């Protein structure tokens, strides 16, 4: 072992410097794609295909944004997406927390077996059930409506049930029992005690749900046909098909589509990170 004092001190300083260097370099690498996206979105098309490429735009064309967005019925796609996302989010929050309450705070026969089924469905690739699901919704006459995108969220999501249950389990049962003795109904306990105490995990579920449905592409692709019903993801794909090489416009629209997520991330960062940590708790 090296002697304590000057020698180990310089070694510590050097290793600190290396750590900061690595983290700094990594940060640049991580941020570069976003910088590239913003930079491209502001270039005139003639500059996009300049060789060698300009790292910073030499001429900034703000009008790329309104021009590109006007090629889409952007408002309509935004409204469609927001409508679907909000209804999915509400369904997942409400139903998953009710189900999770039964799995964590109530004692009943069949609980263990059923919870194992919940865990198993968490691991199931959704595409396996996609075809029959498509057929079911087709029989119900719901193809090309928002129903196939929204309805499944109102049956509870196994991943969120798992997350909420893990969190509810950390509350003490004594509080529930005291409330019941004071004449509070079981549902009252859920509504007035469990939910208010679970804001961090509810926030995490809301954010995950928002993130998932905002980005979702596979299900809208399968279930929506009429262009007036497109979500932003489908609209973006359509835009790409039409303006495939106008990279400045493509970057502008893509960035606008990402923007709500980035904004929510910066405002609710704590919930995001907490939420991910809940999921990682083995």
């Amino acid at each position: 072992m090296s002697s304590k004092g000057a020698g180990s001190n310089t070694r510590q300083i050097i290793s600190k410097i290396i750590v900061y260097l690595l983290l700094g370099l990594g940060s640049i690498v991580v941020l570069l794609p976003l910088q590239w996206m913003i930079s491209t979105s502001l270039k005139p098309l003639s500059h996009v295909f300049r060789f060698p490429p300009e790292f910073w735009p030499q001429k900034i064309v703000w009008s790329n944004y309104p021009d590109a967005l006007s090629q889409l019925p952007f408002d309509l796609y935004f409204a469609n997406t927001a409508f679907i996302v909000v209804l999915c989010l509400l369904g997942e929050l409400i139903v998953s927390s009710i189900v999770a309450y039964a799995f964590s705070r109530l004692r009943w026969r069949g609980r263990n077996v059923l919870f194992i089924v919940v865990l198993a469905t968490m691991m199931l690739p959704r595409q396996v059930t996609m075809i029959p699901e498509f057929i079911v919704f087709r029989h119900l006459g719901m193809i090309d409506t928002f129903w196939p995108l929204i309805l499944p969220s109102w049956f509870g999501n196994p991943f969120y049930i798992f997350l909420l249950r893990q969190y509810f389990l950390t509350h003490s049962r004594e509080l529930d029992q005291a409330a019941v003795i004071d004449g509070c109904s079981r549902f009252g306990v859920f509504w007035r005690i469990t939910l208010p105490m679970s804001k961090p995990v509810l926030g995490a579920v809301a954010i995950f749900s928002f993130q998932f449905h905002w980005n979702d592409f596979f299900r809208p692709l399968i279930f929506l046909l009429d262009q007036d019903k497109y979500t932003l993801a489908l609209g973006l794909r359509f835009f790409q098909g039409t303006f495939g090489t106008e990279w400045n416009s493509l970057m502008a629209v893509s960035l606008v589509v990402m923007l709500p997520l980035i904004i929510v991330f910066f405002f609710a960062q704590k919930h995001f990170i907490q939420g991910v940590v809940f999921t990682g708790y083995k």
Partner: protein
Amino acid sequence: MSLAQFVKKQSGFEGLNITYQRGETVLAWAMVSPWVAGFLLLTAFPMVASLALSFFEWNILTPPEYVGLANYHKLFFTDPLPLHALKITVIFSLASIPLNIVFGLSIAMLLNTNIRGLAVFRTIYYLPAILSGVAVAILWQWIFSSDFGLLNTALRAFGIEGPAWLGSKIWVLPAFVIMRLWSVGGGMIIYLAGLQAIPTDLYEAAEIDGANWWQRIFRITLPMLSPTIFFQLITGVIFTMQIFTETFIMTDGGPANASLFYLLYLYRQAFQNFKMGYASALAWVFFIAILLLTLIIFATAKFWVFYEAESDEDN
């Protein structure tokens, strides 16, 4: 650790002996009923239905026709594409998952060294993990552009002439692996939380015993983190094998089917060719493949996943 043990540990019902109250049971079933209904309607029935459908030929419009094992015969013997698609999907996963774990762990370890600005670094590294879908796919398509893209521009700064990436049969899979590495922050956050939960006295004791940095990582950090890594590995397999949007947007499976991931092929059969029976067979084979991979990983767990409770029994 077996699957059953894992689930039992997950469920947290070990050692509960309880009496059930009738009212509570009724209420509980009422509360879980939406999920039960959803499970029957949107999972159990579709699973069985797709298994049944896989023995039929059906284009949705005309009545289905029973064909026995013909779909499976075609899948394994006459149509070369399903096994090719499965192969490249597995190769992609075998490259992408370990790299994501190694990078995620390394960044988390760097962040866990009492540095200033932890919150800022964490935000930067985590940001790409929240973005996904079509917008990200389009961004990366542009980054991989061979003449004007960011990646080859950066490589040129080092005097390297980069490949055509998405246009190259050889480089298209590495391109997808690189793209997925961008969102390494998702796993990193989880490892960081795991690292912060390791008691510091373990490291202090090791230092007193003369353990070097390398030994501390392999004897303390990694074993303590192994349950987290295990969980990430399992979810990583399920998530990574399902790659779809990126290939649909960026390459449409090309060039020459080099990025024809399994779900893209499944999608084409089901929703472009309307071969619902064949697509159901494809879906079931995919399901079994993922299940097998997951079970293999579970089987290896007893060699490398370390649970504190188990070590107590050893002592």
